[in-house]
């Protein structure tokens, strides 16, 4: 044993390590990672292939929507545009004809806005209060109501299509925007209530108890304690509702008249128009325009969605 290693040797000996352990020249520190390992090639290979599979149609749509018709007729749908023109977008938005109207998608867009905003606000407002009541308060028949709601979530829409027509007609709301808003709010109720109930159930019960001891009532606890902690779930509910209602086609055609048709219905009418030449660039632009709103919602709310709001409420 040399002088230099005496101290370490004693230390090693004192914890019972064999003496070779400290002089061993074997592996040490973090394990090296190879960039081109079989695992990485499989992983990234799959991801890239799947991404291309999903992004290619989008690419074709984008490229086609900024080409002129002569260029499209050449037939190579993958080639980048030789000459970029935004005329198809303008036409799709403001000039394309459906039937007698020639004001493009803009009319449908505003109809969709007028349908989506009140429906989303109403359904989320009601469902969040429902969920809060079911999660935090015990009342007579609470389980019964909850069971009915769950059941409602699994009934196919088609079953209720005609009965709802009758109800709306009798109520004098058939063909109006109000009627459609009510239908959307009602049909969103089961799944949203379930969503909110589960979220409120996951919040610490002691917070609710503390608020009761502090003298807050049903609405006081809802607005002052629960709401400020529920931003993530409101964002989730908003995403679900905005995409669902914006993309709705069935209710839009069944319960309204042509003046109130939402964007999706109008898009369909533009794309499926049988008169004249098929303007692929206009169709592509119109489709992209219609899909823009849900897309924007996703991008804007993504960050809020991830952020944890309840931090610090309980044991941390």
């Amino acid at each position, binding site marked *: 044993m040399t002088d230099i290693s005496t101290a370490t040797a004693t230390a090693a000996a004192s914890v019972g390590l064999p003496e070779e352990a400290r002089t061993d020249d074997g592996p040490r520190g973090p394990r090296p990672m190879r960039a081109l390992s079989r695992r990485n090639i499989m992983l990234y290979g799959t991801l890239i292939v799947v991404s291309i599979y999903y992004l290619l149609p989008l690419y074709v749509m984008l490229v086609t929507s900024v080409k002129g018709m002569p260029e499209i007729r050449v037939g190579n749908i993958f080639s980048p545009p030789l000459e970029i023109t935004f005329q198809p977008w303008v036409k799709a938005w403001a000039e394309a004809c459906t039937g007698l109207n020639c004001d493009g998608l803009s009319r449908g867009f505003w109809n969709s806005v007028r349908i989506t905003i009140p429906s989303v606000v109403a359904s989320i407002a009601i469902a969040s209060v429902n969920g809060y009541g079911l999660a935090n308060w015990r009342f007579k028949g609470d389980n019964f109501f909850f069971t009915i709601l769950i059941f409602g979530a699994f009934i196919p829409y088609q079953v209720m299509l005609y009965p709802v027509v009758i109800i709306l007609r009798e109520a004098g709301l058939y063909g109006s925007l109000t009627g459609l808003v009510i239908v959307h709010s009602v049909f969103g109720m089961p799944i949203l209530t379930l969503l909110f109930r589960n979220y409120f159930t996951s919040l*610490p019960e*002691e*917070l609710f*108890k*503390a*608020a*009761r*001891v*502090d*003298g*807050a009532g049903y609405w*006081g606890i809802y607005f*002052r*304690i629960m709401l*400020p*902690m529920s931003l993530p779930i409101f964002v989730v509910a908003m995403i679900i509702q905005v995409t669902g209602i914006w993309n709705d086609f069935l209710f839009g055609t069944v319960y309204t008249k042509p003046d109130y048709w939402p964007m999706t219905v109008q898009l369909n009418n533009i794309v499926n128009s049988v008169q004249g030449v098929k303007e692929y660039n206009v169709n592509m632009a119109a489709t992209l325009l219609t899909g823009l709103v849900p897309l924007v919602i996703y991008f804007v709310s993504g960050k809020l969605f991830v952020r944890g*709001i*309840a*931090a*610090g*409420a*309980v*044991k*941390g």
Partner: protein
Amino acid sequence: MHSVSVRDVSLNFGAIKVLEKLNLDIMEGEFLVLLGPSGCGKSTLLNCIAGLLDVSDGQIFINGKNVTWEQPKDRGIGMVFQSYALYPQMTVEGNLSFGLKNQGVPRAEIRERVDRAAKMLQIEPYLQRKPAHLSGGQRQRVAIGRALVREADVFLFDEPLSNLDAKLRSELRVELKRLHQKLAHNTMIYVTHDQIEALTLADRIAVMKGGVIQQLADPHTIYNRPRNLYVAGFIGSPPMSFLDGSVLAEGGGFIFRFGDHVIPLDGYVADTELRPLSDAILGVRPEHVEIRTENEASDTATFPAVVDLEEPMGADSLLWVTFAGQTLSVRVDSSRRFRPGDPVRLGFNLPMASVFDRQSEDRI
């Protein structure tokens, strides 16, 4: 006058009886601890007193007023929860003043009360912070402050220290005791499963099991004269050692017969009256067993035993010894060293021991 009275309270969740005909009277200014394992109904009882759970039957009085049907806010209570339950979106000040604002207390008085509570709990520097930016101990202080500002007569604590680490827990325990001394007229009801907290804080302890209070007494009595086998086994760490044997009358006194050994029950403090019992249990705490090596002379330590194991615990050591086929724990000074296999002699401090009837499990 009793500060809190629980009369014949029962609580059922469906067919499950959580509390049954429970009675409990708590004096003004008393620090009462509800102690028991999880699921014994102690938190349930506290929630019933708070009004957060409706009782199935019975009455609850606070300061002589029947509050059985009152809302929690109208019962004159403040409550502290295990998970702190601070409102995350509010500052510390917001948390403290929330209840007062709901009561409609004037703004100036809210300020004054919040300041006083903050000073008492030393959380003044954090008044503008959010709970997320506080440590566990600071959060629990805020939670206590929230109960304090309400100037309630009765404070309810639901395992307030269970989420803290050991060092902080003992610090806050001392602070709670100090707080109780300061607020001499405030009744405190404190739920815990930690017997150290119970023994150190309580004026009286109610040991609960299966929704029934097993014993209600001051910590000294609970520790030294447990009413039944359950309380004896639950309280004390390391736990009491039990010897199975029988009680016999002999020569005007009583003896405890354990295998071939005879332990005279001289000086035993009976709850009722000693009587011959064919099936009895002698319970002795580790510190009430004397131990001698074979060489040391002693009048009392006369029973032969063998050392199994030594557990050094710092201030003292715990010896596990085998005595006639049964294992006993003995607390000895840490300066005395024993090795496994050492033959020793044991003696029992009978005035501090307990004899139980195996049938009824009650202390004799």
